């Protein structure tokens, strides 16, 4: 609850700060302080030190899973601000409002990660989506940005319609929106229920950009201002996935047998389309968009597996993926040229940047010693433990091998190709944070349990 309240309040605060404070630095630091505070209070609640008791009437439920994820999300956002808050100022004049919207998104995430009725799920997701439509279009003069936000908005609200239809059908079947009733075994209403769940599944797949509902992702990620792409592709995506996992555990898990094939189909399609299409991209930004689809395919194993490894794994995956991608985007923002060739010879210009970037990329590719490895590893564990569809697992690892192709293209460009990758000026603080981030990735790659222990108390 702390997270929701504080993020909402801070959002309002940022909103007004735009009016009263004129120096950008102050606003920025205010936002950073806000996220820090959010992180603190959330951790406090996670460790049962301080939580505001509000009777939510069973609309929300706060368990360690959701709150642990919230902490990850806030920590990621903190790093994200530290790295890229400066670049938010370059997008447009309404810095404060952007920050406010980001806080509202965080609020939405913390609602969605703790929903207990479909109503809250719906509201949470809408609170996440609507500010994102805005942020996508925030670069108003840029037609790409316009296009992206229009596409995002139209398709987003379309998927909202589908989700609502699903919820309506579910309501028809169960007579309530409470999550607890989703697992109810119904005799006559089963088809209605299943239709509803299916539509819900579709709309959630849309939100986490799983094939064949992923089409908005590349365009939106590509068109949006890179800072916000970074935010969308990492924290928001992870948040939505956590939401999805919660929903899945409640609604689909109990009757997993009849959903497995569908999920398997979605996974296969997502992995295939994401990885294969990424191979041929020229722009790193767009490649990352596709790679985020591919990664989503892997995260889906958390749903497919539906066992303790899945829960641990998705947390780990969320952390690993968000951290690495934030880092990569932070560096991408500093590049003058977003194509692969733009990275040529970066290792000579900026050895540190090249090095940490390599670590992040390796993590995404799932090489040992990085967090990404254990993330993928847990997913495979979950999948194999479920004991179904080993072919799917093998297909997945082959796709992972393909993914190495496009991730390593960046590394090749940075280290092995001649050229001078142009970068904007970089502050030592930026480098420091990047270093810390890389350190985190390695640390999680060595001792994943550092994160996972928090799930169990």
């Amino acid at each position, binding site marked *: 609850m702390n997270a929701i309240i504080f993020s909402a309040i801070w959002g309002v605060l940022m909103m007004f700060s735009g009016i009263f404070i004129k120096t950008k630095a102050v606003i920025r630091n205010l936002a950073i302080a806000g996220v820090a505070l959010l992180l603190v209070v959330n951790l406090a609640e996670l460790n049962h030190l301080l939580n505001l008791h509000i009777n939510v009437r069973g609309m929300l439920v706060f368990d360690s899973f959701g709150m642990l994820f919230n902490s990850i999300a806030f920590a990621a956002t903190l790093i994200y601000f530290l790295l890229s808050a400066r670049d938010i100022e370059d997008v447009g004049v309404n810095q404060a409002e952007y920050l406010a919207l980001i806080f509202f998104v965080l609020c939405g995430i913390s609602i969605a990660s703790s929903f207990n009725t479909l109503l809250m799920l719906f509201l949470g997701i809408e609170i996440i989506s609507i500010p994102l439509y805005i942020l996508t279009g925030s670069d108003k003069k840029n037609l790409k940005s316009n296009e992206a936000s229009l596409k995002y908005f139209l398709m987003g609200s379309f998927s909202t319609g589908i989700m609502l239809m699903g919820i309506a059908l579910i309501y028809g079947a169960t007579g309530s929106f409470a999550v607890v009733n989703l697992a109810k075994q119904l005799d006559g209403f089963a088809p209605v229920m299943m*239709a509803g769940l299916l539509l819900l599944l579709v709309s959630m797949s849309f939100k986490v950009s799983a094939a*064949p509902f992923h089409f*908005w992702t590349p365009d939106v990620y590509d068109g949006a201002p890179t800072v916000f792409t970074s935010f969308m592709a990492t924290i928001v995506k992870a948040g939505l996935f956590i939401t999805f996992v919660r929903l899945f555990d409640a609604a689909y898990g109990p009757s997993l047998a009849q959903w497995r094939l569908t999920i398997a189909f979605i996974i296969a399609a997502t992995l295939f389309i994401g990885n*294969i299409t990424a*191979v041929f991209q020229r722009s790193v930004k767009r490649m990352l968009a596709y790679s985020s689809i591919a990664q989503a395919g892997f995260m889906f194993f958390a749903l497919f597996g539906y066992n303790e490894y899945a829960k641990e794994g998705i947390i780990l995956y969320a952390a690993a993926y968000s951290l690495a991608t934030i880092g990569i985007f932070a560096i991408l923002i500093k590049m003058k040229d977003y194509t692969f060739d733009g990275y040529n010879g970066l290792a000579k210009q900026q050895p540190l940047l090249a090095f940490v970037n390599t670590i992040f990329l390796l993590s995404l590719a799932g090489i040992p010693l990085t967090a990404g490895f254990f993330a993928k590893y847990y997913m495979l564990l979950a999948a194999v433990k479920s004991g179904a569809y080993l072919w799917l697992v093998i297909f997945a690892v082959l796709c992972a091998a393909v993914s190495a192709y496009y991730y390593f293209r960046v590394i090749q460009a940075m280290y092995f190709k001649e050229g001078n990758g142009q970068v904007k000026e970089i502050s030592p603080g930026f480098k420091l944070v990047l270093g810390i981030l890389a350190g985190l990735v390695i640390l999680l790659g060595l001792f994943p349990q550092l994160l996972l222990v928090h799930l169990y108390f």
Partner: protein
Amino acid sequence: MSQLVFLVPLFPLLGFLINGLLRKQLSKPATGFIGSGAILISFIISVVLFLDVKAGKTGVVELFDFISFGKVHIPFAFLVDQLSSLFLLVITGVGFLIHLYSTAYMHEEENQHFARYFSYLNLFIFSMLLLVLGANYVVMFIGWEGVGLCSYLLIGFWFKNNAYNNAAKKAFVMNRIGDLGFLIAIFYLLATIGSVTYSEVFAHAPELSATTLTIITLLLFVGATGKSAQIPLYTWLPDAMAGPTPVSALIHAATMVTAGIYMIARSNILYTMAPVSQSVVAIVGLATAVLAATIALKQNDIKKVLAYSTVSQLGYMFLGLGVGAYTGAVFHVITHAFFKALLFLGAGAVIHAMHHEQDIRRMGGLKKYLPITHITFLLGCIAIAGIPPFSGFFSKDEILAAAYESNKIYWVIGVLTAGMTAFYMFRLYATTFLGKFRGTHDQEHHLHESPAAMTIPLVVLAVLAVAGGWIGIPDVFIKDGHWLEHFLHPIFEASYKLKEAHVADHNTEFMLMGVSVLLAVIAIVYALNKFSKKPDLQEADGFGKVLANKWYADEFYDALIVKPLNRFSKFLDNVIEKSGIDWLVNGVGRGVQYSSRQLRLLQSGQVGSYVLLMIAGIIMLFVLQFFLKK
């Protein structure tokens, strides 16, 4: 005393190391001294060993544990018995003489190559000794490959000349083919008997089935054909004449090439129990003998003639082995070692005098320039022609007698071959030494008898070539005159017990000798007065051409094996590898690229199509959920 047997190979090894490592520092005399000295010492030790073997003190000396795994246990052990000690004498003795000879013969070589030569030579003696001394087949195999290596090194001694290098390579590879057979035989023994130590193998041999024995013995024989230049692996030996002449004398006449005979003689019991293999050995030997002899008839290179005669003589020995005359074979090995070494060294002296001219058509009349060489060479020729009481006569006739006993046809062909031998040897002798000189003037001007270091070995060997046969005088002349047979009896008695060698009565034996001697004499006389007057200088034609071209055997192998192999390997590299497997592997990558290019087009950038695809997806999922899954 036999405990000191390890000294015998030790000294050559030391000689090899010293000469090899200090080849730049040592002066030529020093090198020569060390090289020959090492052999001399081991010769002396061998004599000592021989003496107390003669006194009946044989034994096995186990130096250390070479390879052992599980129950298999292969020690690095030496066996001192009649057979090995006899070979020791020959190897070290002849070896020493040839070392001595070489000090003079190789004198023009520059310092380090001179040293290199001697170190190789010592290494060869070392390996040869291992081969002979080994108490099990693996140690024998070590020496076996070692001598192969040394012959490779020595044939290619003048490595600037690529023809020589190819000859060396050919020799090594052909030997390897044989060695593979040997190796498989060893594995067979390990698999069936579980040991490769002679004593155990021979002890357990009777337990083996006839087929197994046949297979093993045949495989061993394959090894022998490689090493001892029998059909089909004989072609390397003539080419091996590329090496320095002393080397040809030592390796390619006296010692290494007889390794095959040694091996079979050593495992005689196995062969006696496998009659099939025995007859194979006999036939192959005989065939080789004839084939080589015919080729030798038309060769004009002094060393080539000797080389083919060697091949032919080796064939003889295998014939002997094949018909069960093991003693005879060994006997012939010894005598052949004497006279063939003598002949080669003589040829070497000639070549040396003629400034590396080897074509006999440009020689002639050397009699008056090289008296000692001439005499000794003549003696050698008589010996090989098998004229009593020269050494060749006794050993050859023992083999022929045995051949007669086992199969008349063997004998007939054998005798004919003997005749041919006599003929081409005296053709060689006559064209070289008789008649008038046909070389250039400054060659004639420089003609001179060789230095003492070369002539002494000639003389010594000549003596041996004459008298060497007297260790095996058949009963028909002197009762129990066959000392060698008695000496070697312990080695072969098992075989003889198994298959009583039925001895011909004296009359037949006289008849046989008479025939062969007569034939030889006729051939000699004919050859002498044919070639001393007007040697055939022009190129051979008609059938002679075929012989001169060695029945086109090399061309045949080239077309049948070498060329196809090369073509095939090119084919594999360019077709299978590059445009086959690798193409497939890269094809995966290309496939990914291609499908990537195609899938991109799905991302048309139009909301309408996106939504359409989404709806299609929804419909599909509905169908999947509701109507397919039942």
